[in-house]
């Protein structure tokens, strides 16, 4: 029995079904991300766990207890919102103390816990500030401290970093993960940013149109996407149309050449079947390495300097292929119009189930 059990959870708003049959088990102390585009139902699942929405069907259990008839204020869940949602009329310390106060804790207990929480987020010196006097990143840390003050059973984070600047986003997500590890609190993190999800999660749920497309570890999700949607949403992919030449030999025809891929990747597609194969940009390289066994020739159509990497796009017999190479000041990057050859390993080819 897992700590947090979601079984056959469904939600409809009127005629619109936003969450179809959602199933998941989360272990105690696990950090799980719900990843997907806006409108995929990830926030709705989170709001059902918090108790703001009632599921149309299915059950949600925390620690073995069915939550169906519990109001949000009886569930002891911590939640952090995208827009901080700090109470504007209270100081930082009062915000953090709010949950303890309504729970009827004694004054010395509240003070001690508030201090502990503020030290945890390194904002002890700002205890008497009001939210409008603080930056977004500071406010969100206070919101985190407020959510953790009551020692909740589960911590829910609803796109907590989306409103912040890029740099703070990275440092705060690391801070969140460190605190979560330290406290060992079961956490669900909702985001539409794949990099965020990949970098801090134990497991990721990729959601699309109300369905969990894939549940797995970050490396599973990235390296072995279960659906075309997952492959496309998590990272940038080169999608190429291909045809199975010989099932038994595991050869497929891609961009005018025949390549042999690991047979398991074929997923049982028969001879002559049209399939979709995918290549991560980082799997391609302009230089031939000992392990690369396939080469694609094409004309360079664009070159984007992204800092540490240079992303180059080229046209291979009508299909767009983009690949990344590390920036090397000593080397001249390809120019638009050049004819270039991209090398990769046949074993890096992903076959996307249709």
């Amino acid at each position, binding site marked *: 029995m897992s700590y947090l059990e979601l079984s056959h959870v469904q939600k409809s708003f009127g005629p619109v079904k936003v969450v179809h049959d959602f199933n998941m088990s989360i272990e105690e102390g696990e950090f799980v991300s719900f990843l997907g585009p806006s409108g995929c139902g990830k926030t709705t699942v989170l709001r059902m766990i918090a108790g703001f929405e009632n599921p149309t069907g299915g059950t949600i259990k925390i620690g073995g207890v069915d939550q169906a008839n519990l109001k949000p*204020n009886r569930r002891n869940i911590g939640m952090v919102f995208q827009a901080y*949602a700090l109470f504007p009329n209270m100081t930082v310390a009062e915000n953090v103390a709010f*949950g303890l106060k309504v729970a009827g804790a004694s004054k010395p207990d509240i003070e001690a816990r508030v201090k502990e929480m503020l030290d945890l987020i390194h904002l002890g010196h700002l205890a008497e500030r009001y939210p409008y006097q603080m930056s977004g990143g500071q406010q969100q840390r206070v919101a985190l401290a407020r959510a953790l003050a009551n020692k909740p059973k589960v911590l829910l984070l609803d796109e907590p970093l989306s409103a912040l600047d890029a740099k703070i986003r990275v440092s705060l997500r690391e801070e969140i993960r460190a605190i979560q590890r330290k406290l060992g609190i079961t956490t669900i993190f909702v985001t539409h940013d794949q990099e965020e999800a990949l970098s801090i999660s134990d497991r990721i749920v990729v959601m699309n149109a109300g369905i969990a497309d894939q549940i797995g570890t970050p490396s599973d999700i990235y390296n072995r996407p279960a659906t075309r949607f997952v492959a496309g949403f998590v990272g940038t992919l080169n999608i190429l149309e291909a045809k199975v030449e010989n099932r038994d030999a595991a050869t497929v025809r891609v961009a005018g050449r025949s390549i042999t891929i690991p047979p398991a990747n074929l997923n049982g597609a028969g001879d002559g079947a049209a399939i979709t194969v995918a290549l991560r940009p980082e799997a391609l390289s302009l230089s031939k390495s000992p392990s690369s066994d396939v080469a694609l020739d094409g004309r360079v159509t664009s070159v984007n300097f992204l800092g540490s990497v240079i992303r180059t796009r080229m046209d291979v017999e009508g299909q767009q292929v983009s690949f990344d190479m590390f920036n090397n000041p000593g080397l001249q990057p390809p120019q638009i119009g050049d004819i270039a050859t991209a090398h990769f390993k046949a074993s890096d080819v992903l076959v996307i189930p249709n």
Partner: protein
Amino acid sequence: MAATQPLLNRRLITDWLGIAPFALFAIMFLIAPTVYLVSGAFLDPNGNLTLRNLVDLFQPNILAAYIISIKISAASAIGGAIIGFALAAAISLGSLPAWVRSAVLTFCGVASNFAGVPLAFAFLATLGRLGLVTIILRDVFGFNLYATGFNLLSFLGLTLTYMYFQIPLMVLIVTPALDGLKREWSEAASVLGATPWQYWRMVVIPILWPSVFGTLLLLFANAFGAVATAVALTGSSLNIVPIVLFAQIRGDVLHNPNLGYAVAFGMVVITGISNFIYIWLRMRAERWQK
């Protein structure tokens, strides 16, 4: 330096010339008349400084006028604020269909401007001796409103009439403040274990009270300065400050011009204090609304 100095001066002169028309208008038609009356309140007929006029404000008939004015203004402001707040809360937080909200807001825009003489006519046609409601109460329910001592030209009648523009004004000013309450605040409170009542007591009321109390004062000042409705409704039968002042301007019924100035000064003090507190509270309330 010597060369730039006159240039700067010329710029300064153009600057001031630019707002000279406005300054002239404001001084001649807003500030000077007010200052004239206010200073007149502290002078005796021979032009000597005195506090006599202010003391005379406490003679029974003027004091009574102030008291009834304050009572009517306060009652209509409080009544208007309570009902207006309930209505604003209903359309802002009550999950009603969107058309109800826009219908109420548009109607409030109209009704808050529907004051003065026509409003008095409307209430005479409703609750006057021959008004529709009076007649229906008498003929259908056998209830004689006027036998209970009710009179439209009284404290209750005037309060009821004033509320017709007070309620909409409250709705128009408070609805944005209620809309400013974020849904996440109530969700955050409930997830932290607060009951709805705790959420209201600890979050909503502290956030809203400057707006609500400030608007209450604005409504008070609004009713206090309302002349036309009162005059049209009651003729000059009711002894309230605007009517006393109106009669004084018409024909010096107090037989002392400077006492008249003092009456006007008293009005400015009362509406002034309410408005200043209102503006101060608004600024306080806006501090949180980023």
